[in-house]
């Protein structure tokens, strides 16, 4: 596709997503006041639940604990307009391989959510590989916290 086409597409997407946010935030703000468990921070929907799942080195499979966490989170995820899944890795190994691995981790979460009835259309997947560590240290504890998928709701 020509660059100009992409630009127009990007503009349309931006306009569309802005519009979606405006109407949706009213609806969600009302809900937040009822449940008391979630609230809006700018456009972002923040809950008191853990919004991260963690992985083993060079692995992208979800264990029972991750699945329980995601199921607890599911009602909020279903109500969100946009679900953003951000895959991350620890610093070990190569950067480009980790970029692919982070994407695979986020997709594993997406697939689980879709099986549980979340519309795939509202899920956005992005990988940052090892580029955005949560903990900037070189030890097992930091590595295990950095191998994660972060879930953001909008």
């Amino acid at each position, binding site marked *: 596709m020509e660059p100009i086409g992409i630009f127009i597409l990007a503009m349309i997407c931006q306009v569309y997503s802005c519009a979606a946010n405006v109407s949706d935030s009213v609806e969600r703000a009302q809900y937040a006041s009822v449940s008391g468990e979630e609230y809006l921070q700018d456009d972002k929907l923040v809950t008191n639940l853990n919004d991260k799942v963690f992985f083993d080195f060079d692995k992208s499979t979800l264990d029972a604990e991750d699945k329980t966490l995601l199921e607890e989170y599911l009602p909020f995820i279903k109500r969100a307009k946009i679900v953003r899944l951000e895959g991350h890795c620890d610093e070990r190994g190569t950067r480009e391989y980790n970029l692919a691995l982070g994407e*695979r981790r986020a997709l594993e979460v997406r697939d689980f959510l879709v099986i549980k009835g979340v519309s795939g259309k509202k899920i956005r997947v992005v990988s940052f590989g090892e580029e955005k560590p949560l903990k900037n240290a070189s030890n097992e504890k930091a590595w295990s916290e950095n191998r994660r998928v972060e879930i953001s709701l909008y």
Partner: protein
Amino acid sequence: MKKIFFIIGFLISNNVFSILEIEILKGSDNLSKIAFVPFGVEENIKEVYGSKISKYIQENLLLFGEFENLDKAEMLSYPSSEEDFYYRDWKVLGVDYSIIGKVNSINSFGSLSISYSLFNINRRIKILEGEIVGNEDNLKGISKIISNRVYEEITGLKGIFDTKLAYVINSNSDTYQMCISDIDGKNEQILFTSSAPIMSPDWSPDRKKIAYVSFENGLAEIFIQDLSSGKRESIQALGMTNSAPVWSPDGKSIALVVSFSGNPDIFLYSIRKKRLIRLTDHYGIDTEPSWSPDSKKIIFTSDRSGSPQLYEINTQSKRKKRLTRDGNYNARGRYFPDGKSIFFVHGNNGRFQIATKKITSRYIETLTSTSLDESPTISPNGNIIIYATKNGSNGYLGGITLDGKSRFSLPLKNGSVREPAWSPLLN
């Protein structure tokens, strides 16, 4: 008037705060000893030109710890022509090679003619002589040319003193900079600054452009930046992730990775037609492509066997061959300039180190001794590897000569440096 000069000086000096500087960590005991004799000057030329040229040549040749020098104070004489050169004066000082020369004036506009000679003291012969014409404001450039010729004569390898290095600086959690500098760390230029990560720089074969990955628009996207104009252009590959760009040796296409719906595969992108051609198609991760020097093959990382391993694919027949079997992590392979060996990141017992392997052999040789080593890049003459490693949370660059003569590091004064990419030679 003074003020204007100050401003101009500031603009040219680019980034004076975060400069790479090479520190030799371990030199070998039996390095060849070179005498860099201060060049003589013709009567009407500043004497400092002669000493500057020999000093610059010395800095270049000693840059990677491959040689040692004879201290100027120990020299018995400063010959500037063959008639004044006595082998015994250098033999008694344990010198293996002597470089002498003379600076002559051509005209009153600063044009100089520099003649130089290189002597092999043990064989008692002159092994190189030459003459370069240049301007007095470019003594460093002239010295680089002489250094390359001297290096080539002594080692039989191409001189690399006019090559450059690209790298990514991460000075704090939200500042990423795409930089280039001369190979000695001087003349740093910042090509692009972003609050989002920058990855995977790669030089075009003509050294005029750099391709890299930037997250500035929220996802991994490949940009090509022209170095003279600074203009940036996105490769509109439109995947969920677009990454790992590597220029083909002829500069006409870029091997890259696109993940359209969550499955990264290798593609070839034709720069002129702006079109993608699929090269691999596998549900596993295929990434980190790099061209063989003859352009016929591409090495890549794939986890199709269950762990990341290196494969090569013929770009025409699409036939694939697995290149690594030992260890559960062999990734980001690159070919040596002769195409017969590869170097890569080898994971073993939780340590990630730079390793090499002949294509035809199974034996993997580990080159480094730290444990978070990645992104190796090789000098165009195939003799030196620079790689990224870490000390605590601080990233720095390490280097090693493949003849085992030297180890060095290129630390950054402020911030972390990563992903070195060695430029090709100037054609």
